[in-house]
């Protein structure tokens, strides 16, 4: 419990600091509150009525299949059959639980849930049937869920699996209410950081469209500084026709300065202006020439869940109910209460299964649009963003530019330097206005940019520093936060250092690793991939293809570990195909091995995307991608056979949702280096740079 207390203090301190420094009450945005779970709350997660148990899931379900893992914990601790426990997704009547972020659900919620279930089990055994059960925590080792034969190590049919394969309604866009209309909020084709508002529109043209209902000026808060114009229709397909007919003219602030992202996110240009302000590793490298000195540039990238965010809103006697696919129903509730001048008791947000989130569905956007349009129309309203809105109005993985340097003496790194310039992640511009970011920049930096920047090696005099720049496009948490890009940069440089030293990359890493769990996954992946053997010739591919094998590893949030080996084939034209991936993964005690594997698989497919395709195009300061053709994601044909091996611990619980992404991209990049002799430094890689000379 000690670790939790420390974290809780840090979280509380942050909110107080920002609030107190602001002194402009009305302008202070609603800040997400993220209390750690305590046992008093956990009582509300599990209930017994008429012989059946209800597990009210204290997490959002977005494909990590946490409903299954936590049900396993409850069933094992209660000592009841699988069928005896019904899982319900929470609404905001539940005591506040923190956002479902950071791969924390098993790490932070499994034990309190087990404690609550143990107390409920004992109370039932003592003959109690009514009232609230007080939870007196017992030692971890006494919890049945985590003992051998308890919850861990099994993979039952996933919760919601049957509904998914039969098409039952689960997602927010599946909600239908009597009399429901369909809404959309139009916004200017301008950067979200540039003030814009509708000036005039052709209402007569809209009135001629069958199914048109209304134009709504009071359509909810701005997104960034983009104010919208709402429309309501009887059928969803009418919305696009109305938007076109209205031909809205926009007032767009011409004085707003839009800086070119490639000029702002340029580590060398930034270093030329002076030292980076935030320190992750505080060593002082000795001056002199570097053996490794590489610059890596990683662009803006979308979360691109297949489900564009959606919400259904309905008002009843001044109270608001919203169905949402959100990672933080409580934050959405708080923003809605603030926006519509309601008490939090007057707003209920029902969590629905989320069709992919990856960190992107943590803010309140479409929910406020639906609520405003429903209020204006006095009927229930459904709003689902278009794919173009997802790209234009969401926040994204920030672009980052890295310079990584290493000096190698007698096979060991003696000096290390890593400088990075990126944009904000934890203090996302999607929530924090510029003045607030100036405060957080001054006092705190941005832990999201810093995440994973502390290389997991003994590197002598090691320095790592960064800066975060506010951009015209909103950036924020994206699977792994900074750890994905930082891992790619670090693992690329370590590989170059091994080459400079003339030492095998596995042996070189092991010589610099002091953490036994990291060494463990490295040795395990070397074993399953038969490291040291040349990569398998790529079956069916042309003989002129070059093949290569790469290795990388990493630690996520100091709690979970992964090592990855990648094989690639590179065509004469420089096209890269990943032909096989192996991953060894250690997140401690595993509740559901199959779903931990599934998370590793997902992370590895994301790793392929990070190296080969992720890129969100921006022109004149705004995202111009409108479809998946403009911002492609990995396909089946990009995905090779994947082998995942789990190193399983006995007691420690940690996370799996974002771990392998710290190692996968580096392994693929290193395999490309091995195949071609060229170090990939600009991502996604341009095949032309890896083509054979004609």
């Amino acid at each position, binding site marked *: 419990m000690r670790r939790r207390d420390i974290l809780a203090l840090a979280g509380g301190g942050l909110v107080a600091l920002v609030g107190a420094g602001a002194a402009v009450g009305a302008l202070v945005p609603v800040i997400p509150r993220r209390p750690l779970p305590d046992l008093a709350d956990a009582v509300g997660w599990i209930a017994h009525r008429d012989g059946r148990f209800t597990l009210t899931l204290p997490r959002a379900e977005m*494909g990590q299949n946490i409903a299954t893992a936590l049900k396993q914990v409850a069933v094992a601790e209660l000592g009841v059959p699988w069928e005896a426990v019904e899982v319900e997704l929470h609404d905001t009547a539940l005591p506040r639980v923190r956002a479902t972020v950071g791969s924390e659900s098993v790490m932070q919620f499994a034990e309190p849930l087990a404690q609550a279930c143990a107390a409920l089990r004992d109370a039932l055994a003592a003959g109690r049937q009514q009232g609230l059960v007080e939870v007196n925590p017992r030692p971890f080792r006494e919890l049945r869920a985590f003992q051998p034969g308890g919850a861990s190590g099994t993979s039952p049919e*996933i919760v919601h699996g049957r509904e*998914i394969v039969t098409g039952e309604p689960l997602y927010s866009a599946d909600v239908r209410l009597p009399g429901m209309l369909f809404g959309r909020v139009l916004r200017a084709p301008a950067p979200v950081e540039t003030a814009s508002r509708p000036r005039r529109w052709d209402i007569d043209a809209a009135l001629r469209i069958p199914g048109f209902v209304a134009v709504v000026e009071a359509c909810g808060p701005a997104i960034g500084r983009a104010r919208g114009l709402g429309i309501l229709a009887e*059928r969803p397909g009418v919305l696009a026709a109305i938007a076109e007919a209205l031909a809205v003219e926009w007032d767009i602030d011409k004085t707003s300065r839009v800086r070119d992202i490639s000029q702002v996110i340029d580590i060398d240009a930034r270093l030329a202006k002076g030292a980076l302000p935030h320190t992750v590793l505080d060593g002082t490298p000795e001056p002199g020439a570097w053996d490794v000195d590489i610059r890596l540039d990683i662009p803006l990238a979308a979360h691109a869940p297949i489900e564009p965010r959606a919400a259904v809103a309905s008002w009843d006697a001044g109270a608001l109910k919203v169905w949402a696919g959100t990672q933080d129903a409580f934050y959405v509730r708080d923003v809605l209460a603030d926006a519509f001048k309601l008490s939090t008791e007057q707003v209920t947000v029902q969590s629905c299964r989320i069709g992919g989130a990856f960190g992107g569905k943590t803010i309140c956007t479409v929910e406020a649009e639906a609520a405003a349009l429903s209020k204006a129309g006095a009927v229930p309203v459904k709003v689902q963003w278009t794919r173009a809105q997802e790209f234009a109005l969401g926040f994204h993985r920030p672009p980052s530019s890295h310079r990584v340097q290493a000096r190698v003496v007698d096979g060991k790194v003696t000096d290390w330097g890593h400088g990075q310039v990126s944009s904000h992640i934890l203090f996302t511009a999607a929530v924090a206005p510029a003045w607030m970011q100036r405060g957080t920049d001054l006092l705190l930096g941005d832990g999201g940019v810093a995440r994973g920047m502390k290389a997991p090696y003994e590197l002598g005099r090691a320095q790592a520093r960064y800066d975060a720049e506010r951009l015209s496009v909103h950036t924020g948490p994206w699977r792994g936060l900074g750890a994905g890009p930082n891992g790619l940069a670090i693992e690329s440089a370590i590989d170059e250092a091994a080459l400079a030293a003339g030492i095998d990359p596995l042996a070189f890493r092991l010589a610099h690793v002091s953490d036994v769990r990291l060494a463990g996954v490295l040795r395990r992946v070397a074993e399953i991939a038969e490291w040291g053997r040349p990569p398998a010739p790529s079956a069916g591919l042309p003989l002129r293809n070059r093949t290569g094998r790469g290795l990388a590893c990493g630690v996520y949030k100091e709690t979970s570990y992964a090592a990855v080996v990648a094989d690639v084939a590179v065509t004469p034209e420089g096209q890269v195909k990943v032909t096989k991936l192996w991953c060894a993964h250690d997140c401690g005690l595993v509740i559901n091995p199959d779903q931990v594997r599934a998370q590793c698989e997902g992370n590895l497919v994301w790793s392929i995307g990070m190296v080969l395709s992720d890129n969100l195009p921006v022109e004149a300061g705004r995202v111009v991608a409108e479809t*998946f053709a403009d911002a492609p994601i990995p*396909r*089946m044909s990009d995905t090779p056979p994947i082998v995942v091996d789990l190193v399983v611990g006995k007691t420690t619980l940690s996370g799996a949702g974002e771990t392998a992404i710290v190692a996968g991209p580096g392994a693929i990049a290193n395999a490309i280096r091995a195949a071609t002799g060229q170090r990939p430094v600009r991502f996604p890689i341009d095949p032309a740079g890896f083509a054979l000379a004609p």
Partner: protein
Amino acid sequence: MFLILNGAPQSIPEDWADETLLSLLREAYGLSGAKFGCGVGICGACTVIVDGVATRSCVVRAGDAQGLTVRTIEGLGSAEALHPVQQAWLAAAVPQCGYCQAGQIMLAVALLEQTPRPSATDVETALDGNLCRCGTYERIRAAIQQAVELS
């Protein structure tokens, strides 16, 4: 106007004729299995089977389904009597978020009806157009092979 929906005639309301087939299914009929993902036929989350052919329902005008046979995931099997593809999908625990999976399943069903024993290349050619951001592709491949064995 009518179509044959999962084996039974169903009228297409006059004012829904200019909607997409996807909207008609989801919002007029309340069949929530097929999903909106991109609206331009790229991602495949809206895939249904029209006259035996896997079809992107987000780019088909509802009125153009007049007289056609439309099969959605709701018509495949019931929770108690699942279609072999649905069974295989559960056995392989394919879904992560699950949002694209109805489209993937309908595409797999159409493939197996045309090609009961597809090669790995057949599977990849047929399924490559359906996107899954969670990255379940390896399990989709495995589930299709399992479905072949179950059928």
